[in-house]
């Protein structure tokens, strides 16, 4: 099997979870090539080679500085036919999902979306797909001219740099006019860790309500000490305690960190759907009957306003 992997770029740098897609592809076959689209992405292309891609197709053009679905889908379709790959893989980011959907529909090829794992059965790609919001798993395969799949961030180990080098193939940008004008780009603050990429997440829920500002300040301080991202339950977001972008769960983000610390979160099924694939779950809650304890590995029955700062002090001393 030959797999082409989309290495997403942002501001000339690779989106980290793209290396996980490359790592997964390399675990299935040694016939792996990469597709890098962007502006000033020569370093990313070289890095894709160092991390194991045999051939790297590069479209480096000012018109590609920002992801534009019309342009990127046309480029990807061109490279897909040029590379003669049997399969095309991306990380299931927003852009990765959009690209695969567009290329897949255009070619009437199926997409195995948001897979937790991929395996190869001969030349057939088999995706482990969660459906019903993680409550059912299936083995999915596709028919069609090419097999497409997206891999959930943190579902595979990233390909590591080896110092190898790839054949770099410079590809002419597809002659397609964009229809979307980007008027403003606000990037995340430097140092902010994204929930979907985080190793550790500290989350707050309704339990902060007696003093939400202080509650999320304490949670933020613990997160800083642990190098963690800050999450929240829907209850905390709907109450206006914290912005929606922090919401973990059914109508927020689905995360799978190594460690998830739930502070004052009761554990409604909609929240569990977003975090119950975490490796280790810690529950801090005043109510020993809270459902969160039934999925937790460790816990403290207590008030987060006492426990969180105590954890922060303890962690500072030990890390």
């Amino acid at each position, binding site marked *: 099997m030959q797999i082409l992997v989309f290495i997403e770029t942002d501001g000339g740098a690779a989106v980290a979870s793209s290396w996980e897609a490359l790592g997964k592809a390399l675990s299935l076959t040694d016939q792996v090539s990469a597709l890098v689209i962007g502006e000033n992405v020569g370093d990313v292309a070289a890095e894709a080679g160092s991390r194991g891609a045999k051939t790297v197709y590069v479209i480096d053009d000012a018109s590609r500085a920002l992801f534009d679905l019309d342009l990127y889908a046309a480029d990807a379709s061109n490279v897909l036919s040029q590379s003669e790959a049997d399969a095309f893989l991306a990380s299931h980011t*927003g852009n990765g*999902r959009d690209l695969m959907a567009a290329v897949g529909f255009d070619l009437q090829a199926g997409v195995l979306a*948001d897979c937790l794992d991929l395996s190869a059965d001969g030349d057939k790609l088999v995706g482990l797909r969660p*459906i019903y919001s993680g409550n059912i798993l299936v*083995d999915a395969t596709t028919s069609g001219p090419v097999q497409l799949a997206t891999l959930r961030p943190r579902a595979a180990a990233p390909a590591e740099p080896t110092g190898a080098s790839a054949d770099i193939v410079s590809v002419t940008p597809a002659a397609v006019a964009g229809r979307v*004008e980007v008027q403003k780009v606000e990037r995340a603050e430097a140092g902010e860790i994204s929930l979907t990429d985080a*190793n550790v997440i500290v989350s707050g829920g309704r339990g902060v309500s007696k003093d939400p500002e202080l509650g999320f300040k304490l949670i933020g301080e613990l997160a800083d000490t642990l190098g963690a991202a800050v999450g929240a339950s829907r209850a905390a977001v709907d109450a206006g305690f914290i912005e929606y*972008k922090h919401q973990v769960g059914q109508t927020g983000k689905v995360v799978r960190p190594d460690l998830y610390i739930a502070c004052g979160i009761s554990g409604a099924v909609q929240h569990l759907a977003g975090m119950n694939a975490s*490796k280790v779950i810690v529950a801090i809650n005043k109510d020993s009957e809270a459902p969160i304890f039934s999925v937790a590995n460790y*816990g403290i029955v207590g008030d987060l306003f006492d426990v969180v700062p105590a954890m922060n002090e303890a962690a500072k001393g030990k890390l």
Partner: protein
Amino acid sequence: MKYLVCVKQAPDTAELPKVKAEEAASGELSIQLVVNPWDEHALESAIQSSEDYGGSVGVITVGGEKAIDALRSGLAMGCAEATLIEDTEADAWGVATLLAAAIEQMGDVDLVFTGQLTVDGNSGMVPIALARKLGWPVLTGVAKIIEVTDDSIVVERVVGEARLTVKTQAPAVLSVIKEIGEPRYPTFIKIRKAARVKIPTLTASDLGVDAPAPVVQMDNYRKPPARDAHVQLFDNASDLVDALLAEKVL
């Protein structure tokens, strides 16, 4: 301005854990079905846009006969008309093909609103496929409608950790996230009125299309392994931190 919201009837999220593997495989669910929660935000956003910029809102779904209930929820929120495309076999590409055929038949749709994904299929493929079929631009992750004119729209999108303000031409397809606004509660009078609206039912042959055969095959439906759920409780934070260090997750 004509807005059209594509909705799907999906399980009530509180009941999702009760879905059995054999039910998922057959599609015959015994649990409560409601409007997919992401689509409720699409309904709200389209109705709000029609109030801010003028125009009317329609709602459409692809599904079985019972999916009419999802359309009635849309009518009760403030949509003026509803359409059911009866089909239970289509996968994401099939649904997009059927929706596109209906939209082309309507002929006057300016903006299509959808939720970002469904809580059952979870793929998030349909809005993009629909736009490709129509040949329209698509904007996903829409968090805010900034301006609507006769032939353009300006929105704020969330893409990864970044926020983008973008403008595109209408007609277009938008997929929205929760931040765009909480769905309004229908009033009693609107629910009564919605119950009386006649909802036309179309089939693929009415639309003059063949939905493509499914290209994703799913097999071996199963429940995920249960978490090894034996919580170890600590009395103090220091012991807890030690346990996390021993687990090598810190």
